[in-house]
Structure formats: structure tokens, C-alpha cells
């Protein structure tokens, strides 16, 4: 029953948290296999698929639900712009891990506050 109440925000935040946890697994795999020969670095391309949503946000101030319907979350091989596989640099991976953790916490906190506002509406402002 609560899907109608700002369902887009909840959906996109949930999707972003899914992407962040999948990315965490990819980075952990990269770090564990830093010295393995022939290992292909993995990544998750989430923000790149959301170009439509970002454009909608800039122009209209909200996301069209269809823009996020087609987002697929999967681990892919990371390639540089020239199509080659970059070797794994350990400090870059650890920095990415740190940033991903922060992103997850930011999303969790944002979702928390979002639900807190809705909840204060339901409970009439009483505890």
C-alpha cells in the first residue's frame, strides 16, 4: 500500500543499494585476485545505465519510472577506454572499496530519513 507514496525514490534508492553491494563483491574479488595471472577485473556499471534518469532529473526535477526499469545489475569485465584490460592496482581498488562503503552508508541514511518523514505523517506527529 505504500508504493504510491514516493515509490520512485524508494525504488531508485533500493536499486542503488543493490548496485553498491554487488560492487562491493566485485571489488573484494578484485582485491583477492590481485596477483592471479589471467584474472579479469570485475566491475558493476550502474551509473552509466542511468543517463536517461540523470537527464530527467536535470530537466524536470524527477525521475521517470521507465528510465530505471531497464537497469540491469551484473558484474562485468572492466575495460579502459581503449578496450584493454587494466591491471589491478591494489590502492585504487582499496580506495574504490572505501568509496563504495561510503556510498552505501549515504544511501542507507537517506532511505532512513525518507521513511522517517513518511512515518511521522502516519503517526500524526505523536511518538
Amino acid at each position: 500500500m505504500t508504493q504510491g507514496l514516493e515509490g520512485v525514490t524508494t525504488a531508485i534508492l533500493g536499486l542503488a543499494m543493490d548496485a553498491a553491494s554487488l560492487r562491493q563483491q566485485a571489488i573484494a574479488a578484485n582485491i583477492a585476485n590481485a596477483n592471479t595471472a589471467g584474472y579479469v577485473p570485475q566491475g558493476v556499471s550502474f551509473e552509466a545505465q542511468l543517463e536517461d534518469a540523470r537527464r530527467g532529473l536535470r530537466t524536470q526535477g524527477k525521475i521517470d519510472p521507465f528510465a530505471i526499469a531497464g537497469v540491469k545489475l551484473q558484474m562485468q569485465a572492466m575495460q579502459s577506454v581503449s578496450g584493454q584490460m587494466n591491471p589491478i592496482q591494489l590502492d585504487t581498488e582499496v580506495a574504490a572499496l572505501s568509496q563504495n562503503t561510503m556510498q552505501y552508508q549515504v544511501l542507507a541514511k537517506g532511505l532512513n530519513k525518507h521513511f522517517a518523514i513518511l512515518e511521522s505523517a502516519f503517526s500524526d506527529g505523536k511518538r
Partner: protein
Amino acid sequence: MSIDSIASIANVSMMDPALGPAAAAQQGGFSQMVAKGLDEVNQKLLSTQTDLQKLAVGDVQNLHQVMINLEEARMSFQLLMQVRNRVLEAYQDVMKMSV
């Protein structure tokens, strides 16, 4: 965010603390004041939704500004709720009075 139902109390006089001195001067603008207050809170809440969506999509400009706006929106919404509660209490007090 459906807060249109609160607009039904527009004809009850309301003490909005931010507009108190100005409102006391003129007697006829209370419904406009209420509507304006509602609109402002609504705009704040809508802008926090946009900010949260930007966070999720990866368009982060200013994290602390987003958090400050979220907290401001939440506080103004809670203030609105409390004001509504007080006004309802006052209305019920008035209705309880035997003619």
C-alpha cells in the same frame, strides 16, 4: 505526499509563528497564509525527494547540503503536524462549548 486533506482546516484561524506579527495586522489572509505554509513545506519535501534521487543516481553535488535540507524538511513537516494538532484541539474545544 498527500497533505491536501489538511487544507480543510483553512477556515480555522491558525497561529503561524513565522508570520505572527504580520498576520495579526491583517485579519483576512489566514487561509492564504495556511495555503502558503503548506505549499512551502510541500516544496521542501519535494526538493528533498529530488536530492535523494540525485544521490542514488550518482549526481552528488554537496553531501552536507543534502543532509541539511533533509533535516530542515523533516523539522518543518513536524512543525506543521504539531500546528495541525493544536488547531484541531482548539477546534474541538470550541465545539465542546454548549451554546
